[in-house]
């Protein structure tokens, strides 16, 4: 058996979550995560669960247990948005899947935080990929409203929810049109009716009294959904709007004229590069599809891998959408590809620092965690990852992960299978005894 083989990623892992440690990581290639380039021979200091210093070794305060990174890349934990992490064990196994609820009369009132399973294998696998915080949300089923998403950590502890009901999410493209009854006009009418019902509830307490909106035997907006939209219409809760087509994006931006308090975030925005200056002028951030380059629908005819880079050049705040890749753990690969574009004539990519920020500080900022997550600055949460290689390179994985200063156990179902099948030797006993 080869189970004693030294594994870079697991040899140092602990079998149980550790207490918050005061940690000083020296001799590191430090990535702050704010868009800048790496700092050679840097030091990161975490105390009491928070970052107190990240920068050149010369400026670091003394003290704390030291870890010599031996030149390795040290970064903030990645922030994944938008995901379904914690809402399904196996998405095709309905019993394990809380991502959609097509049999409920509720939509906007749905609260993803009530369904999060912090020990889902997907959470454990993605933690081992360096993601420490995620925005997680349901998918719309019976209405245009997906419900309220949560910001979670991936520590696997009893309380994964950092912020419940952090945002409402809707679709105002082909998907929303289908949910609303078959036309974008129906989706927009439902949205406006819903916001008016919510507006009427502002300042009122008790059981909400509004008119239910329905079609056939389906409910598109219950009075509890209208109540859930009060924080949206008053600007206290962000409204994430999925839209890809240029015209759909413009229709989203136009909502601000009718409802000035809406705190809008665009999600997807495949054709955003065609209206980048308008998005920038509206100061609406974008959670952009990263590498989609095919006209997979009629709302994505202009798809190009240069979309994110072109929007960023126009001054748009751009994060990479974790929902449009096989799994959110590919965020690093997508970001790396955006860097590769800078070498292609006619393409627009991102610098290394910009690309890393698009999967760390920018999504954290959009999620309301600005300065707290996705960045190594004094006062930020002590989410720190030590990598085996350049974190945007394919094949690079975390060697060690800290969440709020606690070193994480990176064991999961996959690592256990890996360890069992390091060989196929069953000469003594079947594999079932090898654990």
């Amino acid at each position, binding site marked *: 058996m080869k189970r004693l*083989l030294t*594994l*870079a*990623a697991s040899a140092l892992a602990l079998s149980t979550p550790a207490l918050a440690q005061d940690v000083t990581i020296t001799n590191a290639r430090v990535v702050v995560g704010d868009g800048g380039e790496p700092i050679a021979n840097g030091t990161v200091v975490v105390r009491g669960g928070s970052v107190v210093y990240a920068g050149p070794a010369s400026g670091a305060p003394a003290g704390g247990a030291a870890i010599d990174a031996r030149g390795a890349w040290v970064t903030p934990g990645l922030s994944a948005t938008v995901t379904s992490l914690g809402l399904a*064990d*196996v*998405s*095709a*196994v309905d019993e394990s899947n809380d991502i959609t609820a097509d049999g409920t009369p509720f939509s906007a009132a749905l609260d993803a935080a009530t369904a999060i399973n912090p020990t889902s*294998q*997907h959470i454990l*696998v993605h933690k081992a990929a360096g993601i420490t915080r995620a925005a997680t949300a349901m998918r719309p089923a019976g209405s245009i409203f997906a419900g309220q998403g949560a910001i979670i950590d991936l520590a696997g502890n009893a309380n994964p929810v950092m912020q419940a009901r952090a945002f409402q999410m809707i679709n105002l493209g082909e998907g929303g049109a289908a949910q609303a009854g078959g036309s974008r006009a129906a989706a927009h009418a439902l949205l406006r009716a819903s916001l008016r019902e919510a507006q009427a509830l502002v300042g009122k307490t008790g059981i909400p009294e509004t008119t239910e909106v329905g079609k056939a035997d389906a409910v598109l907006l219950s009075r509890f959904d209208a109540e859930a939209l009060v924080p949206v219409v008053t600007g206290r809760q962000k409204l994430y709007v999925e839209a890809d087509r240029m015209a759909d994006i413009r229709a989203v931006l136009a909502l601000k004229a009718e409802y000035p308090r809406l705190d809008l975030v665009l999600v997807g925005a495949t*054709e955003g590069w*065609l209206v980048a200056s308008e998005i920038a002028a509206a100061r609406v951030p974008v959670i952009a599809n990263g*590498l*989609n*380059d*095919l*006209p*997979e*629908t*009629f709302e*994505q*005819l*202009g*798809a*190009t*891998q*240069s979309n994110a880079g072109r929007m960023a050049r126009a001054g748009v705040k751009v994060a990479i959408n974790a929902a*449009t*890749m*096989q*799994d959110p*753990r*590919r965020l690093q*690969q997508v970001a*790396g*590809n955006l*860097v*590769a574009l800078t*070498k*292609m*004539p*006619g*393409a627009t990519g991102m610098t290394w620092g910009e690309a890393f920020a698009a999967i760390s500080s920018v999504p954290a900022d959009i999620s309301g965690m600005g300065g707290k997550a996705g960045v190594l600055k004094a006062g930020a949460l002590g989410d720190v990852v030590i990598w*085996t*290689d350049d974190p*945007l*390179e*394919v*094949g*690079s*994985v975390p060697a060690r992960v800290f969440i709020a200063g606690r070193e994480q156990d990176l064991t999961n*179902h*996959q690592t256990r*299978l*890996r360890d069992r*099948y*390091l060989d*196929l030797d069953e000469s003594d006993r079947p594999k079932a005894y090898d654990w």
Partner: protein
Amino acid sequence: MFADRTRRARAGVLATLVSALALSACSTTGGSPEAASASSKSDSPKFAATPAGDPVFASTYKPFPNVATAIRGATVFDGKGGRIENGVVFMSGGKIVAVGGPDTPIPADIAVFDGAGKFVTPGIIDIHSHLGDYPSPGVDAHSDGNEATAPTTPEVWAEHSVWPQDPGFARALANGGVTALQILPGSANLMGGRSVTLKNVPSRTVQGMKFPGAPHGLKMACGENPKRVYGGRGRMPSTRMGNFAVNRETWLAAIDYANDPKAKRDLAKETLVGVLKGEILIQNHCYRADEMALVLDMAKEMGYKVTAFHHAVEAYKIGDLLRENDVCSAIWADWYGFKMESYDGILENAAFLQREGACVVIHSDDQNDIQRLNQEAAKAQAAGKRVGIDIPDATVIGWLTYNAAKAMGIADVTGSLETGKMADVVLWNGDPLSVYSRPEKVWIDGALMFDAMNPKTRPVSDFELGQPGEGDVK
């Protein structure tokens, strides 16, 4: 994404290329050479179809004009495990003429590219694609990838669904360096139909893309998809044992057909007889290790060979068995956990197979991943390295070139940089196993079909003309 798990349930069957029967690729697998053909008629009736086995829907592909070209000074991966530093690749007349070190002679009057700091590989080959059959835009009117109306449909041919105007072909060329690909039917059926292997060249017709001489495949599928799709309609199969029962009955009927010289022509059974003869290669969607082992025994029982298991996420559990049976595993690097039979997917799958000496092929099953097969391979390589399995870069390149060609029955003509083979070549602007590298130039049969330095060499499909982003870098 998730081509296998979505409503676009896809079954896969390798389609036999019409011209395959005449060529050497057909002789690469075992079978029952004595099995009778059901095709010939002794009389001369007034009306007659082309006899079974004769070429139909034949390839009309012809290589495009080429100029004699050499690349000098690049790192060359030959696709069969060889690596040459500061190497030379010389192609002329659509063929590889010479591959070697810096002293390799090059004629004086030909085009020479400086490959310093760059890399050369054989053209990338995807053994599992649905481009054209599930094209973009993915609207219902284009959903032509799976004849999911019966548990076995070996009579359908994927090439009859291919839409050559799918913009995905050009993306795979420009961003992925893909020069050949196998289009498979979907996986809802136990036997989904014949696959077709294409040259990745723009064409007005599918015949203009068909890879000359490539054998058809038969797409088969294990596990969840067939039992879900048909069990859900209240018909057999609804269980894994039902899957096997229907398969075995179907094979027995095909054997009877093959032994009956008077049998009326039957397109479904003709495909199965092609498999029994070794002319059509089995490409079998199968996730779980235990099911793969059962399929191998079924193949022995019925007298056919499984060429490759596709989506074989548990292949690492039986690498020894797969090596002994000479079966390739066509796999993703990191897909896992989206359906029950993918729950045990691990990053080390490819490396563990390589450790056992089994054949690894990296596949996409996806219109996006086909643009980055090199990166998928790099992920799988890195996972092995972390557990002490060091696989050379040159071997890893073979996972998406030579090994894929071998499992598609075209390795005698492409898949590696060897004298006399088709000049299917990619010049990368950096190490192809790095996320930071891209294809700079792609040659197919020696013709420069993509050049990142020249926007007019970027194919634009009919569908894209006059639409937002026409001719963009994508």
